[in-house]
């Protein structure tokens, strides 16, 4: 028991020292608090996976009420912003290349006449699909928008032309986020991204800084064991992670109005485990890196796949199998399932315990690697 007490005393010594150093390093400390705010502002407001008001050019050979109805419907759908009228139907190449518009809607001569005759006339929408995400929703909704609009116009003698329901009534329920608000997905995910970035980086740097400043030799000459140094150094940043979590959750609630339907304690369990996992990884990096610069590079080397393959940016299930395998290794992947599950879907302990287990496993592996690599000597 006394060895445990001794060990705790030494951890406490490192912890207090780290706390003072952290407090004194105003820039880093400020950065730790500014990063969540900055990222929330950038990602929370700027990212939209359902873009609207896309600039649209129109080429139309006639100006009948039907054509007007169609154009008005496109406009009021919110997806199309009719910014330009062109006389030349072959203008699309130039317009797209210059990036002036995302769509060119072409209504050929005789469109109304053929419509009234019941010939199902063609209406061409050319889309700049170089960015598939930007075009997809607007394009897939175009037919529905137009047909629904015409239903109101095609009355009386033309009623037989109005579109009828298909043989199957497909009912789609968009659950958890019926309005498809991007922020519901992004803001909880941001919590994971912010914690990954700052936690890994700060511990990786905190340790290599000792080496760079020459204080490592001193630390090694004193009777602190590797795991004591590790725990003592990691603990203050756990608190920082806690503060960041509070900032993000408050912003999620008050600024972005993201619902929180699950249990707070469950999310906090997930957050704590996730922070520890990242801190342990940062400590491992610090045993590999020879300088603070290398520690930064390693952090970004880890950060990039975390952002891209975890399901934060792109749908996880849409990735090829090998990418999903890599994604499964990353703690952020599991954390995103926890945070989105708890906040949006009221996920319970049984729903997310495998994710918690995966993060724990990662932490243990990183911790063992860190302790094994921690140099007890200057060799």
């Amino acid at each position, binding site marked *: 028991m006394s060895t445990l007490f001794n060990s705790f005393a030494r951890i406490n*010594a490192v912890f207090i*020292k780290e706390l003072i150093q952290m407090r004194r390093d105003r820039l880093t400390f400020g950065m730790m608090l500014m990063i969540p705010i900055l990222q929330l502002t950038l990602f929370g407001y700027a990212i939209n996976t359902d873009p609207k008001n896309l600039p649209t050019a129109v080429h139309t050979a006639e100006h009948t009420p039907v054509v007007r109805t169609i154009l008005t419907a496109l406009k009021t759908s919110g997806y199309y912003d009719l910014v330009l009228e062109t006389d030349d139907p072959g203008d699309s190449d130039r317009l797209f290349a210059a990036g002036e518009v995302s769509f060119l809607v072409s209504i050929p001569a005789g469109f109304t006449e053929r419509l009234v005759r019941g010939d199902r006339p063609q209406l061409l929408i050319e889309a700049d699909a170089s960015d598939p995400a930007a075009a997809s929703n607007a394009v897939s909704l175009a037919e529905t928008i137009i047909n629904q609009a015409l239903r109101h116009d095609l009355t009386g003698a033309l009623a037989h032309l109005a579109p009828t329901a298909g043989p199957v009534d497909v009912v789609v329920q968009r659950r958890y986020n019926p309005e498809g608000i991007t922020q519901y997905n992004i803001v909880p995910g941001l919590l994971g991204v912010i914690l990954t970035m700052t936690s890994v980086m700060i511990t990786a740097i905190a340790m290599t800084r000792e080496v760079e*400043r020459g*204080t490592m030799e001193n630390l090694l000459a004193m*009777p602190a064991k590797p795991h004591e140094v590790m725990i003592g150094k990691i603990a203050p940043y756990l608190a920082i992670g806690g503060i960041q979590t509070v900032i993000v959750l408050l912003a999620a609630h008050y600024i972005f109005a993201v619902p929180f339907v699950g249990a707070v304690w469950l999310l906090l369990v997930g957050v704590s485990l996730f922070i520890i996992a990242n801190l342990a990884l940062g400590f491992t990096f610090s045993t590999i890196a020879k300088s603070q610069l290398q520690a930064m590079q390693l952090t970004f080397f880890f950060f990039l796949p975390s952002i891209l393959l975890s399901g934060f940016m792109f749908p996880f299930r849409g990735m090829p199998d090998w990418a999903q395998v890599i994604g499964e290794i990353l703690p952020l992947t599991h954390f995103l399932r926890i945070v989105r599950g708890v906040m949006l879907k009221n996920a319970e302990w049984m729903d997310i315990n495998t994710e918690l287990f995966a993060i724990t496993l990662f932490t243990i592996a990183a911790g063992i690697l860190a302790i094994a690599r921690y140099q007890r*000597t200057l060799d």
Partner: protein
Amino acid sequence: MSELAIDVRGLVKRFGDKAAVDGVDIQMPKGQVWGFLGPNGSGKTTTIRMICGLLLPTAGEGRCLGYDIRREAANIKRRTGYMTQKFSFWTDLTIRENLEFVARLYQMPNRRTRIDDTLETLGLSDRQHQIAGALSGGWKQRLALAAVTMHQPELLLLDEPTAGVDPQARRDFWDEIHRLSTKGLTVLVSTHYMDEAERCDRIVYLAHGKLITQGRVADIIAESGLMTFRGIGDEVRALAEPLRHQPGVEHAAYFGAALHISGTDRASLERAITKTEHKKVAWSQVEPSLEDVFIALMSRTGGDRRSHG
């Protein structure tokens, strides 16, 4: 318990294919103050690091305070104080915070009074809330000494503790060392200063990782077999270069305004001097100083041959 504080044999440390320390034996009794001398890169720091368990020897065995330097480093660390060559306390902590960290790490009882006492003894009380990084070299060195002695170690390893420190601070520092030594502390201190070396009970001289000589100052001077002539005069400045190349002159160096030439053969030294008779210089034989001996040792064994820091 053995009466030797340090007892190492055949200590070797290689970095790559280069031996930084190459077969060093040191048997140092408890309670003495030993000086560790040698040109830069001679392996002093590496030897000290191996003694206190900071580096694993490539070959050789040894005990420090009775503990095996390979296997019982934790015990050695608790009982030694090691002051690094470069200031290695935390420059973003205050003096007091640095001492508090050390006190907590060593789990010292009565921490507060112990730190107060330490600050008092070293005259740091007024500055205890200053950031360590803002201190001058002399104060940093005081802080480091306070920090490495606060846990009352049995052995103190000091690696060039007075480099870049002003003469008064150096003097105070050595007074402190001797004060600690009279309390029974064993001290091994590496230095480049001859006046410091002369204050040591014994001297160990290393060059290129090999132990060249060791013993009392007087013994080392006697063993060197060196004879020294001293020239004083207006025109002595021009003589060092030509004399240095005379046969039998091992080294020629200025000590203040005087020129010392040393060698082991009296006849050749006198022959060299007669060649300079046309200059207005008065020559006399003097007792070789420790510095004469070391300059001679360095020119016999060569200077810093390190390729890296």
